Structures are given as C-alpha cells and as structure tokens.
C-alpha cells in the first residue's frame, strides 16, 4: 500500500503530540512494507540542522544531491516553495510560502497551493491518505476529493471547531463548542461571524468526505459529535512504545521524600505557572519538582516561570528530554502532574506515566478526566484552581503511602502498545481502500 500522511507541521521543527503520532504510525507502516510519505507545511528554519538530508526535487540521482545545508528549492508556483527531504528514513514533502497568507492558521483554502496539491497527488498516486491535522492543508484535502482518493482523518485537537485550537474563550474560560457560531459570537467577538460559519461548514465537508473519522479519546469525539450530529467518530487510543518504558515499582512509607514531575512545552494553557505557584507555597524540605521541557514562542511567559521559581531550590528546570529517556526519567520520579487549563485531549506524558506505573495528578477537564479517576489511579483537581491543587499536593505529602494503593490499581490496566494502535490503523486503511474499489 502507498500511504500519504497530511499534517500541518512536522519534525525536525516541531515534535509535539500530533507530530509524534504521525511519525510513529508512518514508521510502523514503513516497517510493514508499505510505502509512506508525509506532506506538511514548514517554515524551513531548521535547515542548518545537520541531522536531516535535503534533496533538491523530484529527479534526483546520486550525484546531484548533497548533504544538508543545500539552499536549492523548487518554486512550484509564484508564491510556493516545495522541498523534499528524509527524516529518519521517512520521506517528507514540505511546502512554504514566500508571502504567508493571512488566514494561514485558521483558513481552509489557499489558492497558491491548488495546482501543487493536484500535481502532488497525481504523481504520488497513494492508495490511502491519512490526515493527521487539517490546518494549513485544506487545499490538499480538496485535491484528494477531486481525484477520488480515499482518506481518513484523526482528530487530535479542536481546530476544526475552534480557530484557537483549544476551546478557550477570550477570558480564558473553557468553551464547550461553537454551537454553529453562537458561542463564538458571544465569547470571542474578535472573530467575524461570517468567518466562523464558513469555517464550520468547511469543517463539516472535511469530516463528511472522510471514509472514517477517528479520535484517540472519547471526550474529544463527544465534543465533535455535539456539533456535527451526523458524523460517526470511532475511537482508537494512541499507543506508546513499550521498548522505552521502565516500571517504577517504588513502595512508599510515611515521610518519604517525593519528586513531582512535569513534562511538556511551556505554554500558558498547559498551566505550568499554576503548578510552580502552588508548589513554591508549600513549605516542606522533602519535596522536589522536576520540570522537563522547553519554552514555546512566548518568551515573556518563560521568564515569568523562571522568576517564579528562582528562590526555590527545590524546583529544577531539567531541559528537554528525548523519547529514549522517558522510562528512565519516570522511574526516578514519584508523581506526574498535568495541570493543563484546556481540554487536553490525549496527553502523552500522562499515558507514559501510567505505563511506567507512576500516579498522575491532572485537571478534571477533557481527555484527562477520562483517564484519571480521583483516588483510583491518580488525583484530579478543579481546572485552574490553585487552592484545590494545593490541597491535593498537601494530602500526598502528608502521607505518601496513599500512592501505594494507586500504583496497585494502575498495575491492573494496560495502556495500548504502539503496535496495537498501528494494527488498528492498518485495518482502517485496508477498509477504506476496499470501500473505494467496490
């Protein structure tokens, strides 16, 4: 089978949840003997990275290509650049614009991309296309429809419903969906009404045209079903690579020292500032906080975080971690915290922690509350409430032994393996291809 993956951004620039998912699945498919390719938007800032090899275009022979740092690129159209390269054995096609369209991050059409999209799919002739994320790639999806190529789509955030991705209103409260645009008008008046209703219509088209719509969490599926009642959404949970997992089998006694763990990017809506704020206010010399991850674009927020923690030696910023270190890191901590302020859909770090037998504290919103039940395999606190989080932390610190029963419960449930997820997706691909032929 030839499988093409459509996504809005990719390695080596970005490596958040959606990108990881597409890379893992593409990798698995390649290992099974399928041909794969990823097509994505990119801003080409990474070109000085020597890890990847850059090719100059479709007709390459061994002598024409050079190792990284090539500056050659094809211009496929007046405003469009297209490059091809390999990332860890996966072929990637990346496109970029000379002049960025205004609606790059919330629109569905892009006149510059029309011809290139058509040519791309005509040349590649995939059997099935898997849309990892429809942002910036609406034109590609349209080209699929025109050429009768079947596609399936995995929803990983709320972008199809909400131009902000995360369903947070202008006043940073959780929103439950656009309600055909009524909610948007009320809570986020900065978006013109016409644009919202157009978006919703386009989103419906994208979903209706897919052979299958998939979601990794029931929660996200429910939010979408509320808005689009006729669309069927099936659940396939994300799998994790068990090769990297190491079980944390510590047993806790009273007065044991505790290390809390946060892993993820530094963005406001991930709520790290809430955690640091609460942690620094608890005075106990046997607790520590290890923060893994790095700052996003918001430098001010980064500085704020560093400032909040500067006088507390128990808080450590440990930098970024690679996928291979996950097991080792989780083995060395006691409790993972996911204090996100939005409907986090399928936080990878939450599942990796559970797979390593580490209890998790999360906000009681979205996909997080689906997975963590208070007192059973972790604790939940009211989303955004510092007081509530503080109470939870203090309860654990007072008596670490309560973690032991949590760990027993966690042992009884298994997070799916990446191979199982890939198996389910392969079946979806086959089913979609067959339904086309008949």
């Amino acid at each position: 089978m030839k499988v093409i993956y459509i996504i809005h951004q990719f390695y080596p620039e970005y490596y958040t949840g959606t990108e990881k998912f597409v890379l893992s699945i593409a990798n698995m498919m390649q290992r099974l003997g399928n041909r794969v390719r990823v097509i994505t938007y990119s801003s080409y800032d990474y070109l000085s990275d020597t890890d990847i090899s850059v090719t100059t275009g479709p007709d390459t022979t061994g002598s024409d290509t050079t190792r990284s740092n090539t500056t050659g690129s094809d211009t496929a159209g007046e405003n469009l650049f297209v490059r091809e390269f390999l990332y860890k054995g996966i072929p990637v096609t990346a496109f970029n614009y000379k002049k960025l369209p205004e609606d790059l991050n919330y629109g569905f059409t892009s006149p510059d991309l029309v011809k290139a999209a058509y040519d791309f799919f005509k040349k590649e002739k995939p059997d099935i296309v898997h849309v990892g994320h429809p942002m910036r790639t609406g034109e590609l999806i349209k080209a699929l429809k025109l050429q009768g190529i079947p596609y399936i789509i995995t929803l990983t955030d709320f972008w199809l419903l909400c131009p902000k991705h995360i369903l947070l209103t202008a006043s940073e409260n959780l929103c439950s969906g656009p309600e055909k645009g009524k909610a948007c008008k009320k809570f986020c008046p900065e978006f013109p009404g016409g644009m919202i209703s157009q978006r919703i219509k386009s989103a419906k088209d994208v979903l209706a045209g897919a052979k299958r719509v998939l979601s990794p969490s029931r929660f996200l599926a429910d939010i979408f079903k509320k808005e689009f009642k006729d669309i069927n959404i099936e659940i396939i949970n994300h799998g994790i690579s068990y090769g990297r997992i190491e079980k944390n089998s510590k047993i806790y006694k009273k007065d044991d020292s505790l290390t809390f763990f946060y892993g993820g990017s530094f963005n406001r809506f991930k709520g790290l500032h809430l955690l640091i704020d609460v942690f620094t206010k608890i005075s106990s010399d046997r607790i520590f906080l290890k923060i893994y991850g790095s700052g996003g674009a918001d430098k001010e927020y980064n500085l704020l975080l560093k400032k909040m923690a500067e006088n507390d030696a128990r808080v450590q910023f440990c930098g970024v971690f690679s996928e291979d270190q996950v097991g080792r890191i989780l083995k060395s901590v006691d409790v993972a915290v996911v204090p996100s302020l939005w409907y986090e859909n399928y936080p990878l770090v939450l599942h990796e922690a559970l797979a390593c037998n580490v209890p998790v504290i999360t906000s009681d919103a979205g996909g997080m509350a689906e997975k963590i039940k208070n007192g059973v395999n972790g604790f939940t606190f009211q989303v955004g409430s510092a007081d509530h989080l503080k109470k939870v932390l203090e309860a654990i610190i007072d008596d670490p032994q309560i973690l032991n029963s949590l760990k027993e419960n966690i042992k009884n449930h298994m997070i799916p393996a990446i191979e199982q997820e890939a198996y389910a997706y392969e079946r979806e691909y086959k089913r979609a291809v067959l339904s086309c032929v008949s």
Partner: protein
Amino acid sequence: MSKYFQKIDLNETSSVPAKIINLVGKDKRVVEFGCASGYMSKVLKEKCNCEVIGLEINKEDAKIAEAFCKKVITGDIEDLKWHKELEGSNLDVAVFADILEHLKFPEAVLRKTKDILDKDGYILVSVPNIANISIRLELLLGSFEYEKLGILDNTHLKYFTLKSIVNLIETAGFYVDSVDYVVKDLSVSIIKETLKLLDLTPTGKTINSFNKIDATAYQFIVKAFNQKQKQKVVEKVFNEQIPHIYSIDRQIADFKHKRSEREKHIKNLEDDRIEREKHIKNLEKIRAEYVQHVENLEKERAERKRHINNLEKVRFEYAQHVENLEHERVEREKYIHQECENFAVEKKLREKIIKGHEEEISCLQAGLAEKREQSELLKRQLDGKEVILEKLLNSKSWKLTAPLRWLLLNSRKLEQKLKAFCFLSLQYLKIKKSGLFDAEYYLKHNSDVAESGMNPLAHYIKFGAKEGRLAGRSAQSIIEPEYAEKVFYPERGAQIAENDTVSVIIPTLNGGKDFFSLLHSFKRQKGIKKIEMIVVDSGSADNTLALAKDFGAETVTIPSEKFSHSFARNIGAERASGRYLLFVTQDILPSSDFWLYEMLRALKNSDAVAVSCAEFFREDVDLFYRISSWNHHRIMGFDNGDRILSMPESESYLELRKNAQLSDIACLVSNEIFKKYKFRNDYAEDLDFGLRLIKDGYKLAFLNSTKIIHSHNRPPYYYLKRALVDNLTLKKIFPEFQVPFVGTDGFAGDIVFTFDIVSRLVREDLNSLVLPCTTETLIDTVDKRLKSALLSSYTPFKRMYDCNYIDSDFRTFLKNIFTGLQVGKKGYDGILVHAMRGFMQIAGHYIDNSYDLIDEHILEEFNACIYKAYAYQLGAHLAYCYLVTPASKRQKIEKFVNELTIGI
C-alpha cells in the same frame, strides 16, 4: 551758641540742613544768607570742600562763623550791603536756610541775589510750611500761638505755603527746579479726634486732602535756577534738538504714510486670502467627491477580481473533472480490450481443457469396461465365498461359540464402563467432600440441568467440567471499570458460544518487560466464554512466575535441562481443560481485543482443525527479519488472503512445506485433535505437527486477515544458530529437502573470504555513499562489490576489524574459525558469496518496494542487516556442510555445530 545750632548728619534724610548741604554738592562757592554760627558752613567747608561766604545779623554768631567761612558780612540782609560787595562774584549757590520767613521783603532780596550768582548758579531755599496739618487744626480750634522754635517761631514775619513759596521764587525771576520737603504729619486718629471737638466727622476725601504734601510737609526745600539761565539752557537744548525734532517729525510722517499704505495692502491680502480659502474649500469638496468615486471603482474592481477568481476555480475544477473522465475512459477502454484478450485466451485454454477432459473420459471409459469385466469376475468369486460362509454360520460349532465371542467383543467396553463408573464415583465423593461445588449456583446458572432433574454434581463431573461450566463463584469477574483503556474499537457482532473455552499455553524463560503486556492483553480478550492461562516455566530468574500468578494463570515449573519445545508444550496441554488450545511464545502481543475471537471464528467457520496467522511486526523489528519474513511469505504464497492448507498432490519438499504451515508463535488447535498427536522433536515441532495432520487428511488454516504482533530484533549470533538449527531440522522432517553440497575443504576459507568482502562492503563502499541516494544506487553498489568478489582471489586473513554490528558471541565464533587458517592464492570458488548475492537480490527487491531514497537512518539498518544475513547464510551452509559430510569426516565441523545448537 546760636539758638539755631543743629548738629548735622548728612545721611539724615529728614534733616533740612543735610538736604541743603547735599543739594549744594562739592567744590562749590557758596553764599549762606543767615549762616548763624556757621554750623552749616563748617560742614560745607570741611566735608564738601566748599568756599562759603556767610551773611549774619548777629555779631557773636558771625564771629564764630568766621572760622568756617571765607568771609562773613555782618548786617541785615535787607540792607543790601552785601549786594555791593558781592555783585559779579558769580557764585555757584546761594543758601537761604529758613531765612526768608524772617524778612520783610523776601522777594526783593531774592531779586538782588540774581546779580551775585553765576549764570548757571542756583538758590536753595528752605521755609516752614504754614499749611501744615497741625497748624490748620490749631487754627480751626482758634489757636495760633507763637513759639520759640518751629513753624510759629516768634521771629517769623512771613508765612509760606507750597504754592506761595514757589510763586515767590518764580516771581523773583527764578526757575524752580525741584521741591523737597520734610514731613511732620498727624495720625488720622488725632485728626478725627480734633475735628470731633468741633462736631465734624471727616470723610475719606477730607483725610486724603490732609495727606497731601502741602499739609504733611513741615518744611519745604526749594532749588531754583536763575531763570534766564533756564531760558538759555532751554533755548540751547531747543536749538540743538530742533533739527532732530524736524527729522523725527518727518520720519513720523513717513512712517504714518507707510503704515497706512501697508494697512491697505494688508487689507487687500486679507480679502485675497478669504477669496482663496473659499476657492480651496470648493476644491476640497471636488477632491472628496473624486476620492469617493475612486473608492467605489476600487471596490468594484475587487469584486470583479474575486468573481474572476471564482470562475477560474470553477473552470479549473471542470478541466480537472474532464481530464479525470478522459483518463477514466481511456482506462476503461484498455480494461475492456484487456478483458477481451483475456477472454479469448481463457476460451482457448478451456477448449483445450475440455478436449483433454474428453480424451480422459474416453480413456476412463475404456478403463471402465476393463473394470467391469474384473468386477464380474470378482462377483462370481464372491458368490462362491458366500455359499461357504452360509455353510459356516449354520454349522453347529459356530452357534456353540456365540457367547464366547460376545464376551470377547464387549469385554473392553465393559471394562471401560466399569473404570469410568469407579472413576466418576470417586470424583463425586471427593468433590462432594471438598465442598467446592456449589450445587445451587450450578442449577441456577444451568437451566438445562435443572430441567433434566439430574444430580448437578453428577452432571458437572460427567459433562459440565469438560464444557467449561462454572462450578461456583470462584471465576474472575470480567467486568471492567469504565475508565479502562479501550485498546481498540470493537468489532460488531461478537457472539460468545457456550463451548468456546480456550486454554492458552505459554512456555516461558525470563519473560521480561513485555510479559506483563502479554498477560494483560489476554485478560482483555473479548468474545470468548472462558480463557485459561497456563504458563510452563523452565527456570525464570525474573518476576515471570510472580506476574503469571498475579494474573491468575496456572503455573508449571520444569527443570531447565528437561526443556524442549515439544516437552514444555505437551506438559502445558496436559493441564488444559479448554475445548481449544492456543500455543503462543512469550514474546507475542495480541493485536486487538478480538484477536483470539477472530482466530477461533476462522477455525470454526472452516473445516480446518488448526489455525495460525501472519505476524504484525513490533516497532523495533530489524530489517533482516522484515526481509526474511516478506520473502518467506511470498514463496509460501502466504502474502495475501487467508489460506486453507491440505495434503498436496505432489509430495515435493516445497509443496509439503507450504501446506504443513503451522506456527507455534500463535497456533490454535482443537484440544481433541491435539491430544491424538501432541508435539514431538526438539525443534520445529509445529511444522512436524502440521505435517502429520495434513498427512492424515486434516486441513490447516493460515490467516492474513488477522495478525499477531511479533517480530525479532536479534544480533547476528542468534541468526547464525537459528539458520543452522532450522536447516538441520528441515532435513529431518522433510526428507525430500534438497541439501546443497558444501565441501569441508575450503569451507573455512570461504567463510573468512566472505566475511572480508562483507566488511569491505560496509566499511568502504557503503560508508562512502553520498546520501541521500536512490535505492538503485544502494543495490548497485552492493551488487558491484559482490560480483567483483566472485572474480577475486583468496587473500591471507589479516585481522577482523571491530564494528558495532557484530555481537561479542559472533565475534568469538568467527575468531575461532579464523585462527590458524592457511589460505593459498587461488580464484574464489566458494558458495557463500553466491548466497549473499542471492539474499541481496531479495533485499533489493524489498527495499525498492518500501523506499524511494536512502538516508543515514536506513543505511544504518541496512548495514546491520548485511551482517545478520551473512550470519544466517553461514549458519545455513554450516548445516548443509554437516549434512552432506559423511560421519567419519565430521569431527571438525561437529564441534561448531554442537556449540551452536545449545539453547535454541
């Protein structure tokens, strides 16, 4: 002392003498009328360096004054003696300090004074002020009293007001230059009090008038110039200034003229400006209108452009659509044409077949005729036999021995029945005693038993246990908490059958991290009535057994030296109570919650008695495994669709191998069937089992529609051993397997040579590839090296380079082969390079299917794969060598083979 003596302080501002002396100035020639004792003259002389001529009526005073004056003329001023003496003296200043009021005719004196003064000279006169407020008030009260000193000095003859003294002096021909005064006034309250005495209340105006100088002054000091002089000065000044004045007048006239002109001009400009402003306003209006117009045109233009864009898009879409339709049409035409051709071909083929069949039929008919004849013969024979038999059955001896025969035939049956009865009753007693059987529960959950009225325990012992019915509440609950991870979306319509019980048998040795996931995934399997797990462990040192127990699996431990693949599985099968047995290895993972259900359904829906399935690789699968697996499936014909396998017509190795396919990685078989055959052999027990089944007419199934997650990522040493054992066993099981000839002489040399080639390929050729490169380039590079190897000569072995693609066991093994090797110089005549070439062709095919371009990542895997392939080929050919070498010459190779066969 004169009564008029005063001490004079020149700084005293209210002192008249001081004022007068200051007015005199310095270095002047002064005449002091009435100098008294010369107290003023003294100061004038000493402090102001003046020359003073004094005039005094009093002789004593005059005498005193002589000390300070140049000369003193005694006598009455009004006698004018002085006039004769001083006329034409051109004196600078004449001082009349409080003198004039003492004279009868002050005006006359003043007139005469003119003659003694210089033309620029001046007089200084001080007189008391009769109109002083105090005097006025006294007078109002009717009082006018002379005093010794003061304004009403009893020697005063004349009284002056400001007006009158100025008048007097001017009349005398002088010009008054300045008037100074010394104040002595009264407070307002005293004024008011005094007036009150007369019943007068003063108004503000009244008080103000009393504050004027003419009322408040006590004395006046007047400086006056010689009038003529003043006139002369004035005239001089006038004459000097006249031209200036005239010119200034002219200038003023000019300026006035210019000013009026300019004012006119300004007015004109103003008018002009107003005009222009009006004009500008008009132009502004027009401009605004134009701007508006332009805006409208712009809007219209944008609209039209958008419209054009839309039309373009539509047009483009239509063009695409048309192209697609065209394309489709062409395709369909091709297809139709192809189909016609195919039909024609097939028609011919079928005609041929029909012809063949016709011929066959005629042959068969001929055969049939023959057989008919034969059967006629046999029938006649049979008739004969029947007659004999009839005779026998009716004989006496037969009838007599009837009971004996019955006993013989049925004794076995009776024995069995007796045994079973004893066994069952024993069981019954045992179970009843133990109290583990819950009769109520059993009857409640099995209505058919309740209906039949049979004793529940008897039923259970006889039928229920075998059918997997539960004896009580001890079964594990399958209810999952609602937050459990949904591993996959459920298949619809999974129907649980009452007798779908499966026993899962897993031989284990250090199951490791993945064992937990395996046990868990089995726990979650849906659609099966009951799953029982049986773990057969041969000495795990990790937590394998503990985990198994945690998950409620039954565990059996066997000593590690007793382990063999068949023995362990058979032991497990003995404990199994399920209707079906599932044999798996410890490194598998069910691919979904319905995997087992799908396997079972396939088994039940087909007439196969055993089923296995294809593999779905793990994330860390190595490239060698992928290629081998792909190739294996391709050759076996298992790469597509589900297969039913049965005994082939041709008993060639390949056909048998294909159809005997059963894999112990995951193999589901009916318990009943298994019991009859069981596993045997140390190795490839699954293939052997499959072969025996199909030879006895059973069918097997191999599934691609469902897969088990399994793959290997092993070092070269593993593949070496694997290949050796695989090929040794294959020969055992499939005697028809053609073993290629590999001679012992020169085999070692071949091994070394090929290793060298492989190392060079990886270290030199592939390392110097410019990446990324096409798959073609990669394959060509490999082929080039291997081809050239075929034309090279053996060279003495130098050394084995370190590389991280070889594990230490493999390195040790190779070193043992390499040491002490003598190689002569001759052309390559070995087999391993050919074998590598063969593999590389397959590898090339696989890589071409999966990749377009090769980067460092893929190349890394490829390098590792090459070494593994080498190890595999080495193992396989070692097996061949062993198999074709007669036992007497095997010693050397036996050593290696024995070492390698341990532990597989």
